[in-house]
């Protein structure tokens, strides 16, 4: 017993000395920001060096989550960038997936080792912003400082009006989801959305028409269920996307940037659609990947047994919805459409996929060089085209569509063996429909919780549905508030 006490004392003694040591250690790097305070109507600003890019030799690190194929594309275009700016060395590396990039940067920030550029989702940037680590881009975008490239051509450091107009507006607006003033923190890199995949052959054989509204979707599911009683007509991949998209389509509250009450999704409209979709699930009309216990794409492309005839999933996963082939013949044809809407005249679809953010650095030239590279990646037509073709994600600038190679690729789109191009085509055609949810420290919790809420409500089989839904909403709000305390 005595020895145990000694060991405890030992630990305590070390503890005291350590606390003393910690309090005088650990200084982060000092950026050179000139901020006018983040709250209120003023945008957060970053002081762009007056000389712009001075041609100095810098190394830029770029964290992303590209697989081997996409890295090949990137590696092809870095030399193109270096033809313009030979003194900027780009080092890039994959950190696994999006969460991997976030976790890596989260830790790296503690030692001031953050990369210069990173793949990001709005939630991640909101997190980095707690540490005030992300460079606000407005001053770069607006900058008229002249830069001269290696060919002797001069151009403005910022964007021209044409360049801004070239961005697909919904994608571009995502960069401003962080504060009331609309400070721009990110630029879109490559985007996907959700789309409705349907079995065109089956629809034609049975004289079914593609649903434009949720009302039509409900009726259609009933019809399909009558034709094939064993099927589940519709598969939805992501419950969280479903909930968030419905809020947007109904115009009901989801989350807000208001610091006094971020989480506003517990309201009658939202309880209403959750209740409706629960009935759909109980009728056997709809399932989700989590509830079904397997990929909905597997159900969609099944050749025997249970099937589904529609899937709402990411346009980035189009290749998985490709119809199965027997002896070189596709068993059916897949087609794609915009997901059902509450109001088809003002469609709303979610925007997904990586954006780029730039981190503060003690060397302002690294920040400027990073900006130049980000500008190159987001505005270079050839790169955006090649990246889109390799990834199946949509390019973020409209002029890519007039690129000849890209046009030829899009022309080959079909629902039998080139669904990828078809999905990009659809994503581009609904460019006016994208929306963005507010991003703040804790916004990822809302996403997690509404997904869980949706799942639990759909599978509830008890009798007191309203009470259960009420309970689920309240629990979700509690978890969100706790996560954001």
């Amino acid at each position, binding site marked *: 017993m005595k020895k*145990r006490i000694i060991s405890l004392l030992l*630990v305590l003694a*070390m*503890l005291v000395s*350590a*606390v003393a*040591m*910690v*309090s005088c250690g650990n200084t*982060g790097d000092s950026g050179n920001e000139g901020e006018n305070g983040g709250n209120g109507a003023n945008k957060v600003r970053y002081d762009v060096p007056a000389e712009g890019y001075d041609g100095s030799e810098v190394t830029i690190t770029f964290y992303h989550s590209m697989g081997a194929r996409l890295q090949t594309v990137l590696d092809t275009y870095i030399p193109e960038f270096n033809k313009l700016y030979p003194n900027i060395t780009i080092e890039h590396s994959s950190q696994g997936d999006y969460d991997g990039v976030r976790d890596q940067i*989260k830790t790296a*920030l*503690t030692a001031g080792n953050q990369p210069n550029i990173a793949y990001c989702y709005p939630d991640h940037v909101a*997190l*980095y912003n*707690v*540490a*005030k*680590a992300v460079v606000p881009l407005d001053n770069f975008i607006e900058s008229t400082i002249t830069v001269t490239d290696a060919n002797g051509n001069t151009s403005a450091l910022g964007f021209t009006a044409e360049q801004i107009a070239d961005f697909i507006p919904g994608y571009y607006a995502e960069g401003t989801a962080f504060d009331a003033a609309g400070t721009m923190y990110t630029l879109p890199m490559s985007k996907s959305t959700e789309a409705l995949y349907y079995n065109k052959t089956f629809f034609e054989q049975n004289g079914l028409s593609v649903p434009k509204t949720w009302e039509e979707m409900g009726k259609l599911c009933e019809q399909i269920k009558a034709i094939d*009683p*064993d099927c*589940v007509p519709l598969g939805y991949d992501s419950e969280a996307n479903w909930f968030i998209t419905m809020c947007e389509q109904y115009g009901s509250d989801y989350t807000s940037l208001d610091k006094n009450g971020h989480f506003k999704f517990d309201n009658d409209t939202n309880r209403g659609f959750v209740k409706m979709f629960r009935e759909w699930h109980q009728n*056997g009309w709809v*399932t989700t990947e*989590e*509830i*079904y*216990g*397997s990929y909905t794409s597997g*159900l969609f492309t099944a050749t025997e*047994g*249970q099937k589904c005839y529609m899937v709402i999933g990411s346009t980035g996963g189009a290749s998985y919805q490709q119809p199965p082939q027997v002896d070189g013949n596709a068993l059916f044809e897949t087609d794609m459409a915009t997901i059902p809407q509450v109001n088809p005249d003002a469609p709303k679809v979610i925007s997904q996929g990586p954006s780029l953010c730039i981190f503060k650095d003690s060397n302002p030239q690294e920040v400027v060089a990073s900006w130049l590279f980000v500008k190159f990646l987001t505005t270079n037509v050839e790169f955006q085209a090649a990246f889109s073709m390799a990834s199946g994600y949509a390019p973020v600038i409209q002029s890519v569509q007039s690129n000849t190679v890209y046009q030829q690729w899009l022309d080959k789109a079909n629902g039998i063996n080139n669904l990828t191009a078809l999905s990009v085509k659809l994503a581009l055609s609904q460019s006016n429909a994208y929306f963005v949810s507010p991003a703040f*420290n*804790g916004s*990822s*919790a809302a996403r*997690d919780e509404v*997904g*869980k809420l949706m*799942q*639990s409500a*759909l*599978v*509830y*089989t008890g009798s007191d549905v309203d009470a259960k839904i009420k309970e689920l909403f309240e629990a979700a709000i*509690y978890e969100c508030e*706790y*996560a*954001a*305390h």
Partner: protein
Amino acid sequence: MKNFLQKIKFDQWKAWIYLLPAVVLLLIFTVWPIFNTLRMAFWNGYGLFKELGGELTFEFGIKNFKWVVGYGGFITCLKNTMLLTVLTVPISTILALVIAVCLNAIKPFQRFLQTIFFLPYVTNSIAIGMVFEAMFNIVGFGTTMPSYGIINNILGVFGMDPVNWINAGSSYWANIAVLTVYIVWNALPFKILILLGGLQSVNKQYYDAAKIDSTPRLRVFTKITVPLLSPMIAYVVITGFIGGFKEYSSIVGIFGDDMQAVGGESLNTMVGYIYKQLGANHEGDASAAALILFAIIFVVTMINMYVSKKKTHY
């Protein structure tokens, strides 16, 4: 200084020389982080990024601990952690002991079977999570055409109804049963390895002596094998408890980040809570929870050590 050194026996500082590399490394990479944990735990409302953002001034207190204990799911986390530990440690230890003793006892196919029991070491963890899900899964549960995983098919061979193990609407105890199987499976190879190694270190003379005395076989097992293996058994039990209290990845492996079956009860654990707080930028709460967990493990380990000291034969 010289006087001081002379006073200490030769043995004393020799021991510290042997321990020097370990102690130095531990001070840097283990003790130092523990202090940092303490700093964060007793800093009210601490968040790493808040500190980096320069918004935080030090305020000593136990507010973080209050937040942890005040969390609505705290008791659930505690209960799940305890339950899984109490279930999995004894089962895996006994099973591993029996397998190790059996493996040591057979002759034909001995090498082959031993090789099989080494395979988990080269099976990548990605594959292991997937296979367990597939084994217990019911695809399309609740639809008109469900298809059952291997486990339910085996139950069917014995005329039993399929059980909803992990899918939507599955019961808490079914979930716990699956987790128990998974955790035990995961723990087995390590324990078999240690116990097999231990068995090989046991001197064969004891058995020869028993043979001469023609001691009954059950007595050989309980009076010779188990006592001689007792240091290793104590080792796997104590480390098993410590590992059990830190259970987390197996639950995510089967039930995903939500740590519950669809619509089911929460299977969150203490470490699950810690992870979630780290993700939500609440390093202060995470550290406080880690210290609470540490206190629990410490007490349990002390009890374990006390018991094993009485029962261990060196």
